[in-house]
């Protein structure tokens, strides 16, 4: 495959491991062992079993008829929202907790934005009886409160990060600092295809089950494994990486992604990394990131906590550079509208992150005979607060006013 990492952990010019010496031993141990561990028969057996019996895989591939009627083509939803804990994040945490166990680690740390990765990590830590600490930005603790409660009930300690924009970037900084302070017994369970090598590759492998199943399910339903287009949202890029993985070299399949444009790409409050970003280093990886001309990382904004990140995984930076992936900036309002629409047409309340992927649809010209798969990365319970505020706002204001103004402050 031309979109895999080289021996130093780079996708083209992106990736690598730009870490301080304090992390060298742990990272190089992981680099040297992760493939051996995850390719072993015993690991694969346990991983697949847990995915099936614990997470509830395979996730259905659902033909969304009313959505298809509206936009044309045949639209399938890959129902990652139906997984245990409510998103794709569980695919990765099951994989990594098994890696941690193989490496004899006793303490699990993680960062979280929307709280979905935090919940998925707290869940598998409970399952394995391991201590779990989750870092979460102060703003996210507030806006994703239901997930904070879940993590606590699952026995995790949730530590609030107060630095910077108090979101995912800052939670990640704190998790990395924790790992520096606890180099012996701790495993850092990263939630997306970000961070130093080998994390982007390892997480992509664990999420690749999404496209593996898609191929089989499309074979059954359509008689051929390839859709015409795959749509996914990108925070760090793990659900997108999983949905694209087995199609990366298959150029007939178009890859489309949505990123959080917040209040618009020119508003100064955005997380549209592919447009606003440039090459640099964030969280140990060379990739696209939002930064000042002086190399200070910019504080991003998106209503969606899972997309509120100033970087993007190195695989996606590479795919963008190679023009293999087309990225659409999606505003808060567009995503809220898409969430409403899916709820109305299909009776499915999506996560705000996943709603960004749905919001690509109105921007496409779709042929009648086309097959599209949208990766519905998560469910919307955690976002009910934002959705409710949006309904309330809509009742009081005409919609066209809303589109033009940024009066809606969730």
């Amino acid at each position, binding site marked *: 495959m031309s979109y895999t990492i080289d021996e130093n952990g780079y996708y083209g010019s992106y990736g690598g491991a730009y870490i301080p*010496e*304090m992390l060298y031993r742990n990272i190089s141990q992981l680099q040297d062992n992760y493939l051996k561990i995850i390719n072993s028969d015993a690991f694969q057996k346990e991983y697949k079993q847990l995915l099936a019996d614990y997470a509830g895989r395979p996730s259905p591939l659902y033909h969304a008829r009313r959505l298809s009627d509206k936009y044309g083509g045949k639209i399938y939803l890959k129902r990652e929202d139906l997984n245990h804990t409510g998103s794709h994040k569980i695919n990765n945490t099951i994989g990594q907790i098994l890696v941690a166990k193989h490496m004899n680690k006793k303490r699990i740390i993680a960062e979280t934005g929307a709280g979905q990765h935090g919940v998925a990590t707290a869940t598998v830590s409970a399952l394995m009886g391991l201590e779990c600490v989750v870092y979460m930005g102060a703003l996210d603790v507030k806006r994703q409160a239901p997930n904070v409660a879940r993590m606590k009930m699952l026995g995790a300690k949730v530590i609030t990060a107060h630095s910077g924009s108090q979101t995912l970037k800052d939670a990640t900084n704190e998790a990395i*600092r924790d790992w520096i302070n606890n180099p012996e017994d701790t495993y850092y369970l990263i939630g997306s295809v970000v961070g130093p090598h080998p994390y982007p590759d390892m997480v992509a492998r664990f999420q690749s089950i999404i496209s593996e199943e898609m191929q089989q399910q499309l074979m059954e339903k359509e008689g051929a494994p390839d859709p015409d287009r795959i749509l996914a949202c990108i925070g760090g890029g793990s659900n997108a990486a999983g949905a694209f993985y087995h199609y990366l070299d298959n150029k007939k399949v178009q890859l489309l992604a949505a990123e959080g444009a917040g209040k618009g790409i020119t508003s100064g409050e955005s997380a549209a990394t592919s447009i606003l970003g440039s090459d640099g*280093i964030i969280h140990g990886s060379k990739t696209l990131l939002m930064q000042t001309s002086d190399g200070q*990382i910019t504080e991003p904004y998106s209503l969606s906590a899972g997309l509120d990140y100033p970087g993007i995984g190195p695989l996606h930076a590479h795919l963008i550079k190679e023009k293999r992936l087309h990225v659409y900036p999606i505003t808060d309002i567009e995503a809220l509208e898409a969430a409403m629409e899916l709820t109305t047409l299909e009776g499915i309340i999506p996560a705000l992150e996943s709603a960004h992927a749905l919001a690509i649809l109105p921007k496409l010209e779709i042929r009648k005979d086309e097959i599209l798969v949208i990766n519905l990365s998560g469910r919307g319970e955690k976002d009910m607060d934002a959705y409710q505020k949006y309904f309330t706002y809509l009742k009081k204001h005409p919609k066209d006013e809303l589109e033009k103004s940024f009066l809606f402050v969730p």
Partner: protein
Amino acid sequence: MKKITQILEGKNLLSIFLTAGFPTVERTIEILTEIEDYGVDFVELGMPFSDPLADGETIQQSSAVAIRNGMTLATYFEVMKIVRKKTDLPVVYMGYLNQILQFGVEQFCRKCNEVNIECLIIPDLPLEVYEREFKTIFEKHELLISFLVTPTTSDERILKIEELTTGFMYVVSSSSITGRRGKITKKQRAHYEKIKAMKLNKPTMIGFGIHDKKSYELACQYANGAIIGSEFIRYVAKENAAYFLTTLKA
């Protein structure tokens, strides 16, 4: 021979880390011009970064203040230009890699030469990447480099670091981010002893967690000297830096 190289041949060296632009740009200039009088042998001048992964709260906060004060790499070199009119005190550049990349590596090296910065510490530039991508250009500009050695660094790797070090070996006192206070533990002492017993051919400086006369003097028994960062910055914040320095060598 470079001035810093000469100094690093000495013993009981005292080095201070400060964040450029904290608490103000003017104060940074004052400190740099006066600090030699307090027995400081050389300074690490930190370029503030928005996301300093290896740093604790003190340096995070001083960095945030410095960035708000408008500290950029261009300003950093302006500060050094002013400082150089008054002192040839050795200044080591310390900063994360991203800013050097945005500034342009070649341009960065030239600027360091212009203001007589002789040595660099780039905590997130790993040895391997340095060897592959940066060694040639730093050597061309005669810039020395110092690498961190931590309690988790293997002996084999310490020897590799020794080989590639052209400045000094920065011995990180414990497995932690910067700014930890508290007594030096037995474990830390064992780490110091191990490093000393390796009889390394390059100068060594112990840093991270050095915060008073006692921890400074202990470090000096095992290395060429010690580096004080967060604690100095705490005293700068309290406008008590001069007093703090006098307590170290009293």
